């Protein structure tokens, strides 16, 4: 009878496992290839600023002289444009979503400075995006 079209489906689901995943008690199902947290490798980065110029949201800040690379996690939309643009493959998108960003601080990475001839100048702030 056309009134009970749903009943068959309802009965089937009454005896099957729930379709949902009881996160956080069960681990998140990670889909390979998903665009998640942007990761930065300071060992290969040459601080060329290409990523800063490309980023559509202005999330990245780069200071070439001080070898600083910074990201504002709240602004990053995980689009992957910087990953594509980076000439040194220093950037990658991981499948993890990372811990939630709760402050507006930028995550700053300091590259290794060449040891002797760097003059001891007062550290200037990283230029905004």
């Amino acid at each position: 009878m056309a009134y009970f079209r749903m009943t068959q489906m309802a009965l089937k689901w009454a005896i099957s496992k729930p379709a949902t995943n009881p996160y956080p008690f069960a681990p998140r199902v990670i889909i390979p290839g998903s665009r998640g947290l942007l990761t930065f490798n300071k060992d290969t980065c040459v601080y060329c600023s290409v990523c800063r110029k490309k980023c559509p949201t202005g999330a990245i800040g780069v200071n070439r002289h001080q070898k600083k690379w910074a990201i504002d996690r709240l602004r990053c939309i995980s689009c992957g444009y910087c990953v594509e643009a980076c000439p040194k493959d220093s950037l990658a998108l991981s499948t993890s979503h990372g811990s939630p960003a709760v402050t507006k601080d930028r995550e700053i990475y300091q590259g290794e400075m060449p040891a002797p001839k760097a003059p001891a100048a007062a550290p200037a702030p990283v230029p905004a995006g």
Partner: protein
Amino acid sequence: MARTVIPFGPQHPVLPEPIMLDLVVEDEKVVEAIPKIGFVHRGLEKLVEKKDFHEFVFVAERVCGICSFIHGQTYCQAVEQIMGVAVPPRAHYLRTIWGELSRLHSHLLWLGLLADGFGFESLFMHSWRVREKVLNIIEATTGGRVIFGTCKVGGVRRDIDTAAMQSLLAQLAVIEKDMREIVDVFLEDNSVKRRLCGVGVLAKDDAYQLGCVGPMARASGLTQDMRQLGYAAFGELTFQPITRPEGDSFARCAVRCGELFQSVDLIRQAAARLPTGEIEVKVTGNPNGEFAARTEQPRGEVVYYVKANGTKNLQRFRVRTPTFANIPALVKLLPGCDLADVPILVLTIDPCISCTER
């Protein structure tokens, strides 16, 4: 009988997004509806002055959260036309596949919202359960769940290799089976029929004169589907627009249900013919000229007008979204209906307010 004005929205349980209707009612009958839009205007069109035309794809995709991919694709098509870029055939096919996946998830979302709108909660849950599987395919192939981010001027960013395509098709077979179950309830169940049949009838002539687009027009018997223009790979695939003659809410539901299976079929056709080769071409220089691109979104025809002046920033960018074209029809449908039918009627145009207001 005294008239009363009841505000419907901008915050209302059936509305995922804010639109406001001032309903003038006499007793329980609506006599007039006055729409007000503009609650989520974000000024995206103006942003072309800040973002260069390559970057702007990301903005175009965010015009709408549901039909995001097709927005990006339409924008790219317009810029590619201006620049005379020949997109590789494989990219065209991949765009087609993703476009149809986005139609699948949009229609399933809408079916869920409709079921929720008439109080059929379990049907709503099941529609969204199936939608989740579509989102998983999208995430596996593009990296994003609703914002695909794979379209770029000159092609696409990601490829779908043979193994991924096989898994996509296997999952699609499961999804199709699940969809048959829920569509059967939508189209056959008497309680659904009694809620939708004969509610909000829009005659074919009215649909034409009010400039309806998409499923709204097709449910009133207009055979109008922008995919017939043959953009992307649609020119090489065979399909017929799904139409219904009745023009009521049930017809609009049936058209979208039919389009679910049509999309599955189109994805299969595209996957079977997927050519090998490059997925993008290098784009150099800046666009100079103007173009209006039209594509078929889940909600209907979208028009992108792009004007460029030879610099890296576009001069003018304008979007006419399908919901905007369907609002006059909604205003026409509401007078004379019961107050209790208003949520259903508002839902049947598949309102997507944030893209209407950009």
